[in-house]
Every structure is written in C-alpha cells, then in structure tokens.
C-alpha cells in the first residue's frame, strides 16, 4: 500500500499533532500473524492506553513503535508506522535512534545493577552527551518525581529501592535521553496500589512534555489515566485487531462496539 496522509482526524480525539500514524500494520512471528492490519493514530501530549485480552497483541503493537520486535528473529511486519511522517521501518532508519526518541518502560522494574546516578546517566553517556551530567540526572529524577527520595543516596544501587521507586527510576532513565515518546508496557503490574497511583499521577505530569502510550490489563487504570483508549481483541485466527479507538471518556461511558462493551464491563474474558 502507498503511504498517504489520512484525510480527517479521528472524531473526538482532538487535533494535536499526529506522532504515530499506524497504517494497516500487521506483525508476524514466523508464519503466525499476531496483529492484523491495525490502523489508528497517536497524538502528541496525549496518553493513549491500549487494552484488550491476553494474547491480543497489545505488547507486540507497543514494541512495534520502537522496533523492539526487530530483536525477535522470526518477527516481521507489513504495513507502516509513520513517526512524525517518517516510516519507522524504512531501510535507512536506524533502530537505535528510534529507541532513543521512543523510550520504553517495562512491566517489571529493571534498573541496572549500578548506582542510582549511573542508571540515569547511562543513556546520555552512551549517546555521547557532553553537557552537565549532574544537571541531566537531577532533572530526569525530578521529572520522574523521585528526586526528593533519592537525592541523598545517589551512589546506592538502584536495585536497593522499593518496587515503585525502581519503576520511577526506570522512567527517569528513559527520560534522561530526552525522548519524544514513552512507551509503557504494564508499568504498574508489579506495584502496590499506592505506587501505582503515583505512577499514574506522574504520567499525567509527563504528558506535558512527552507522548505516552501505555499497555495495561488494568481497565480502571486505563479509565483513570489515559486520554484515548484503543481496544484490541483477536479473531478466530488469533490475530489481534483494533475494535475501537476513541476518547477514554467515550470508551468507558458509551462505547460504540458491542465487543468493547462486553470486554470493559467484564462480561467476557
């Protein structure tokens, strides 16, 4: 298919700049099709939640946004994901640069076995950052709302922090390379409710500067924290497809599609 600008913005999703324009994107692991012709858009400074039953391809889609699937040998894709108009999968695109601009926070907090400071400084160092590293570290930790808790123990190992703190450290680490987008794959599933709410509040603050895409199993989290929700499910061939995408308000009060309704009200799993 040819790449062309979509004619009109999707209804109710605002007119902010399009960050990702996903066009008939299909993802495969070997012969198995995990995602079937996904088409939607993600806009700047919005939190977009991707929800859907286990195995519907949410995480595959999320990893499609920063070419993490490239690391899986059997993986390949069809269709396009345009990032600010540039095809992420075009041959001349450097996946390392893609991952610098499009950071990721994972399900389980995974700080490096290094000091808190070095965890945050790692990315900028690798990227050859020549500026004031102390300032970059502090700013990143502040933006991740963890500075006050760690400022007096920057040399202690990141792994010594609580789970919620580790996750915020990982967010600080992602922010340190000054990305444009933060992808979050179930970022709170290993956290207690208080740490979860903290991350959700943090997401709200972060969206002023970043575009956030979050995959979550926690429907209430999607309802609380996101601006836009995309619901994926899978067909009889087990390939994930997009059922409906709309403002989170609309999805959780009057979804258009029966499948969405049944899923979010917990009628079927």
């Amino acid at each position: 298919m040819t790449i062309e600008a979509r004619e009109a913005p999707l209804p109710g999703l605002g007119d902010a700049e399009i960050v990702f324009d996903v066009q008939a994107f299909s993802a495969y692991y070997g012969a198995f099709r995990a995602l079937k012709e996904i088409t939607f858009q993600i806009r700047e400074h919005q939190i977009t939640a991707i929800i859907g039953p286990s195995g519907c391809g949410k995480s595959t889609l999320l990893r499609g946004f920063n070419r993490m699937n490239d690391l899986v040998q059997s993986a390949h894709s069809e269709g396009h994901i345009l990032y600010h108009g540039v095809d992420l999968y075009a041959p001349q695109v450097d996946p390392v640069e893609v991952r610098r601009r499009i950071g990721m926070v994972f399900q389980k907090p995974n700080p490096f076995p290094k000091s808190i400071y070095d965890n945050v400084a790692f990315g900028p160092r690798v990227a050859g950052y020549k500026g004031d590293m102390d300032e970059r570290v502090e700013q990143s930790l502040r933006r991740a709302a963890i500075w006050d808790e760690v400022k007096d123990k920057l040399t202690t190992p990141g792994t010594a922090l609580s789970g919620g703190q580790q996750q915020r450290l990982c967010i600080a680490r992602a922010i340190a390379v000054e990305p444009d987008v933060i992808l979050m794959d179930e970022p709170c599933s290993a956290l207690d409710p208080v740490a979860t709410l903290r991350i959700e509040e943090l997401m709200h603050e972060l969206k002023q500067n970043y575009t956030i895409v979050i995959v979550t199993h926690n429907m209430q989290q999607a309802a609380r924290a996101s601006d836009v929700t995309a619901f994926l499910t899978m067909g009889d061939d087990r390939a994930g497809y997009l059922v409906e995408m709309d403002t989170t308000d609309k999805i959780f009060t009057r979804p258009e599609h029966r499948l969405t309704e049944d899923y979010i009200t917990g009628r079927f799993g």
Partner: protein
Amino acid sequence: MDRGSGQAGVSLGHGHERLRPTFEQALANVKDNVLRLGALVERAVERAARALVERDVELADQVRWEDADVNELQRSINQEITSLIARQGPVARDVRELLALYHAAAELERMGDYATSIAKLAQQLAAEPEEPIFRQIPEMERLCRSQLRAAMRALVDVSEQQARDVCAGDDELDALYKSVYEASIALMEKSPDRARQATHMLFAAHHLERLGDRVTNIGEDVVFLVTGQIEDLNP
C-alpha cells in the same frame, strides 16, 4: 454465550465465560426494587385520587402513612447503587444503568410525595360541602398511572422507542390540566363561595400534571440508558 439480547455467537477469541454473575445478580436486584417502588407509587396515586373522588378521609390517611414505605425503599435502592458503584467499578452500560435507576428511584420517590399531597387535599376537600369533583381529575389519574406503567415497562424492556412514546404521551395530561385550570377559574368567578374547593381541585390537578412530568423524566432516563445521550423529551 448469548446475553439474551440478540447477539449470540459474539466472538472475543477464546474463553467465553460469564465473568461477573454476582454483579449481574446485584444489578437485577436493584432493578427489581425500582420496579417494586414503581408499583408502590402507582398504588399510592390510585388510592389518593380515589380518596379525593370518594371523599374517603381514612383512605387518604393510609396513603399518607404508606409514603414512609416509598421513602424507605428509595433509600435502600440508593444505598445498594452507591455500594455497587463504589465496590464494583461499573463502566459503560453498567454505570449508565445504575445512574438511570438511581435517578428513576428519586423521581418515583417524588411522585410518592405528590400522591401524599393529593391525599392531604382529599382530606381538606372532604371537609367542604359535597360538590362534584371535576371529571378531568379521575381521567388525569388514570392517564398518569398508565404512563407510569408504560415507563416502568420501557425500563424493564430497556426500550428507547417505548420510552419516547411515554414522553410523547405527556401532552394529553398537560391538556387536561389546562382544562382543569380553566374550569377552576370559571367556578371561582361563578361561585366565589366555592373558591377554596376550586383551588384544592386545581392543586390536585397540578400535582397530577407534575407527576406526569416525573414520568417523562424516567422515559429520559431510559433513553440515556440506551443511547448514553441526555435529551429533554418534555420541553
């Protein structure tokens, strides 16, 4: 698995099982209680109007006493709904249904108050010299109750069309009220000594007209439940 509304065979991939039977049962219980409340109110309206027409002070007294049952049932429905919202986190149609039922219960409680007011008027009118009651009043009462039944049916069937029909039917009640108004003024002009009686009847008709408005509000609740849109169907 079919939810009983015509979309059997909906595929969500795998694992088709009912996941929230407890919540569904609780929701059904709330709905049953709202229907019970509707039945109590209908009975109160019928008895209040009969007390008025038949000058039955004792029956009017019963209606006034029994309003406490209406209030108590409404309070318990409110509690159930508040608890379901707090504990079950309903969304989409579930939250709309609970909000619609909450509002419908509040409207029914208010209708119970109108029935009580009519019962009080019945007691006051009974003290007046025996004169015929305006014929429109029993007619309004029958219409009110048939509207109320239709609204409750629309709620049970979750039928947008039935709900819209209920709202459209309110015009007839408004016309009857207008004719009572004219008749009251005429009676007062013709026989000033019957002004008190005319005023009581006018008030009774006014309560019935307001009752009809509350019924249309329940119709609007049903439309909201089905479509998610809040519409004014009784402009």
